[in-house]
């Protein structure tokens, strides 16, 4: 039976209906509420907000529901929405030093001002499936009230910086407005603002793998988890007509500052350097991968060899975005009859030539 290769309007309508039906699943099972996604799949919401580059838990939850839990698809939905939003301007830089801490750990100091705050983490759970969760309806055991944290929780990097042991990171006085990756194309060589924005949106799995590769020797940079902190920070914005910053809300972020060995080259004294990671919500794995890769990408600036993919700026920054990557990979599903036909004509011609030559040779023998 011959099947037409060219599709049409009806096919598209049908596929939309099919995914809608699949999304809902068995109607006997209650429909998933967006609030449930937001409340109970918080880490998925955090990832979609981070890589979708939009802090909006409700929309991220909607995107996750719409995408049937396919997070890369949900990130894409959020980005496509974000791109249509008008710009009011840039917020003031958030001050993670003034964070309302929920979690704060340092691997470099046993104790430090403000102390270590474990907060919510899977780190010390035993990865045993909890079959109790398979039953619904039960209320979770209530967590004990957290002891109030110290008012002052200076960042570990600030403590080291005060001693001059850590390379200071100061704003570039020549820089005007910060780069806006949502409005401008990447250009190379990239400045750090471009790079960090790109890594912030970058695919968690990609950054995790690259960061892991640096640990295994592909661009080793001797990292220590100087500090990871997670909690709420205030977002401030300076309206033109006011001329001073006002708080417009709070967002939850995770910040990771890796401290890396540095031998001192190109005229710099030996000191520690850092790699920086930041993400919305509770996204510790993402921020650690990001910080490792950020540091690896500073190889050129610090006069280190650039021999491995994580140190290669164009390689990393051109391939980190999963919306771009999944789009281009999936476009292979689009018809390529014309290119393929061109190759077919060429291949048949070349085979015919080869056969003619072969026949001539045989005749000559």
């Amino acid at each position, binding site marked *: 039976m011959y099947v037409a290769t060219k599709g049409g309007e009806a096919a598209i309508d049908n596929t939309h209906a099919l995914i809608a039906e699949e999304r809902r699943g068995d109607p006997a099972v209650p429909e998933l509420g967006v609030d449930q996604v937001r409340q109970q799949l918080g880490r998925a919401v955090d990832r979609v907000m981070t890589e979708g580059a939009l802090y909006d838990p409700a929309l991220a939850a909607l995107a996750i529901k719409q995408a049937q839990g396919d997070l890369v698809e949900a990130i894409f939905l959020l980005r496509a929405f974000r791109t249509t939003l008008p710009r009011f301007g840039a917020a003031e830089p958030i001050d993670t030093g003034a964070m309302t801490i929920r979690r704060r750990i340092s691997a470099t100091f046993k104790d430090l001002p403000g102390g270590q705050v474990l907060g919510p983490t899977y780190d010390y759970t035993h990865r045993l499936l909890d079959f109790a969760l398979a039953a619904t309806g039960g209320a979770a055991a209530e967590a004990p009230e957290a002891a109030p944290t110290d008012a002052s929780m200076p960042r570990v990097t600030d403590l080291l910086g005060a001693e001059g042991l850590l390379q200071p990171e100061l704003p570039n006085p020549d820089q005007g407005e910060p780069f806006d990756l949502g409005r401008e194309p990447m250009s190379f060589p990239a400045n750090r603002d471009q790079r960090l924005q790109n890594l912030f949106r970058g695919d968690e799995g990609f950054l995790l793998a690259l960061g892991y590769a640096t640990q295994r020797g592909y661009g080793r940079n001797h990292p220590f988890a100087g500090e990871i902190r997670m909690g709420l920070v205030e977002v401030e914005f300076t309206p033109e007509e006011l001329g001073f910053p006002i708080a417009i809300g709070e967002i939850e972020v995770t910040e990771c500052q890796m401290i890396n060995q540095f031998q001192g080259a190109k*005229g710099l004294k030996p000191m520690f350097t850092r790699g920086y990671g930041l993400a919305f919500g509770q996204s510790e794995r993402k921020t650690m991968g990001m910080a490792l890769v950020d540091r690896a990408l500073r190889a050129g600036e610090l006069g280190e060899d650039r021999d491995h993919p994580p140190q290669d700026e164009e390689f990393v920054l051109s391939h980190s975005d999963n919306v771009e990557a999944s789009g281009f990979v999936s476009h292979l599903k689009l018809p390529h009859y014309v290119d393929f036909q061109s190759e077919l004509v060429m291949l048949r011609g070349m085979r015919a030539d080869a056969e003619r030559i072969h026949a001539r040779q045989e005749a000559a023998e």
Partner: protein
Amino acid sequence: MTRSEPLMEAAGVGHIYAGGQVGCEDVSFRLYPGEVLGIVGESGSGKSTLLSCLAGALEPSSGQVKFDVGRQGLRDVFQLSEPERRLLMRTEWGIVRQNPRDGLRMSVSAGGNVGERLMAVGERHYGQIRDQALDWLGRVEIAADRVDHLPRTFSGGMQQRVQIARILVSRPRLVFMDEPTGGLDVSVQARLLDLLRGLVRDLGVAAVVVTHDLAVVRLLSDRLMVMRHGRVVEHGLTDRVLDDPQHPYSQLLVSSVLQA
């Protein structure tokens, strides 16, 4: 040989790295057409930094490097615009890298490698490009039936010869060589040196050869500079410097080779 105008002139060339570390300091010389200048010194002597400055890859922090660009005479290499400098590099200059992998396109056939410079300056006749590639591969003693093979199927010595053919095909006036025989077996080194000497003489191309190997400069260079701690400690005709070194460091360098 007419000695009217120098091909290249270095005047007080020095480079200090951002951290204050001295690369090289106050190097001056004139290089005449067809002349081969050897630069020797141990690693860290500043010879590689100097080569980078001369070859337009690293801007010196002091002094000037001038090259005879033809109608306009000697011009400061670092005052040329980037396209002018890049054009110079792929036509009148050539750099023979120590590792042929750095100087060749490993995924392009030997013939394509040799033909690239011709195509870069607008040669558009396939047959003529191929004929010239074959001619040059022959001159570096690579059999014609290897013309379509990839460099990775070649031995290290053959790769180095393809690299040389790839550069000489554009008839450069000046070739920079960075340890051209480094990493090769001794017997292969001797053959390559012999070939290089013949080609340099036949073509009348000028060259700056940087090496730690005195045998290389003995065979190739007319004049010799001995470098130590970023400075030139002795400069003279190669035979004179090697047979009758004046500076204590040159004496040490020559004697240590003789002992070895």
